[in-house]
């Protein structure tokens, strides 16, 4: 059985470059191991403000405020955090705020923890039901282009767009 470790995440650098190229100024996040590299790059950069949240829906509201003030933002979260955002997405949908979310999946591919499955299995449907355009990616060579295209879609068409990064790419946690 093939098990990947969650340490090397080269696509994190590519996403960060895309953030900078697309004028992302505020990055709100609840940590996930899959986002560790990207979060660390954002924290070290003076071009983006990295904002840790206590719960994901804070980031949805925060990035609406950011856009009102002229800043573009990105929300980083794990699939379990999507459930926390559902009502706050109504702010985004009703106002047609552009919102870019980057979701690392759990409970989807090679999961060990059964408690991750209910939210992981319904993440795409929950997002779609909340008016979010869902762009899954499970091929590591397509992560950066998917993110870049989703950023354009979100900010050019005033839409909420979420890129879901499969556990197939992130690697699943080794429980020992």
């Amino acid at each position, binding site marked *: 059985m093939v098990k990947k470790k969650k340490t090397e995440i080269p696509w994190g650098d590519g996403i960060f470059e895309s953030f900078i190229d697309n004028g992302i*100024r*505020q990055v*709100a996040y609840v940590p996930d191991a899959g986002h560790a590299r990207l979060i660390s790059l954002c924290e070290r950069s003076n071009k983006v*403000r990295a*904002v*840790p*949240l*206590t*719960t994901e*829906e*804070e*980031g*949805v*509201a*925060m*990035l*609406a*405020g*950011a*856009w*009102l*003030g*002229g*800043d573009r*933002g990105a929300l980083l979260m794990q699939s379990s955090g999507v459930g926390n955002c559902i*009502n*706050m997405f*109504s*702010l985004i949908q*009703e*106002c*047609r*705020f552009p919102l870019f979310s980057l979701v690392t999946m759990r409970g989807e591919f090679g999961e060990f923890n059964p408690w991750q499955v209910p939210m992981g299995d319904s993440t795409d449907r929950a997002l779609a039901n909340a008016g979010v355009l869902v762009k899954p990616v499970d091929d590591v060579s397509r992560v950066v282009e998917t993110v870049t295209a989703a950023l354009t879609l979100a900010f050019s068409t*005033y839409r909420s767009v979420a890129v879901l990064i499969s556990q197939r790419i992130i690697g699943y946690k080794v429980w020992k």
Partner: protein
Amino acid sequence: MPKPLKKLDRREAVAQILKQRGDALLITGLGSPCWDAAAAGDIDTNFYVWGGMGGAAMIGLGLSIAQPARRVLVITGDGEMLMGLGALATISVQRPSNLSVVVLDNERYGETGMQATHTHHGVDLAGMASSAGFPLAATINSKNELTEFIPKLYEINGPVFCVVKVDDVKLPMVLPERDGTWLKSRFRKAVVGSLD
């Protein structure tokens, strides 16, 4: 016989706060704070949040980071603030010096039948903000205290947090525009000048 008013009149308090706003940007939390702000006078730099309960203070944070040269004022209610208490911790960590959050605290869920909120049972929102690390957090109980505090909302290096204890009376609704897309575009045009 109307019951004697012991606390502040919310409409008067909001009007007094906004009279001194200068070019401050305003976010109002859902329910009565929207009606209070609309009653004080609608302008393009008011953004009324008709939903997304619990998000008002965080909208204020994102806006205050994007617009560091402008004062950002959030006016919300106790029920709305209670739904997003984590925001106190998140805002405190970012320490936006230009953000002030005012909670109009009638200790009731005004839009759903005036049920008691947690503040009615003694939960101290200003104490929670202070514990989270807000450099200034206060509870206002009288007109004199409010008059004295208002300049701090606009001048002190924040984030500033202020609970204004108001009467639990239902006032006639003064409804601002409610189309979210229109409110959003109007606000951003006024502040940034462009939607791109």
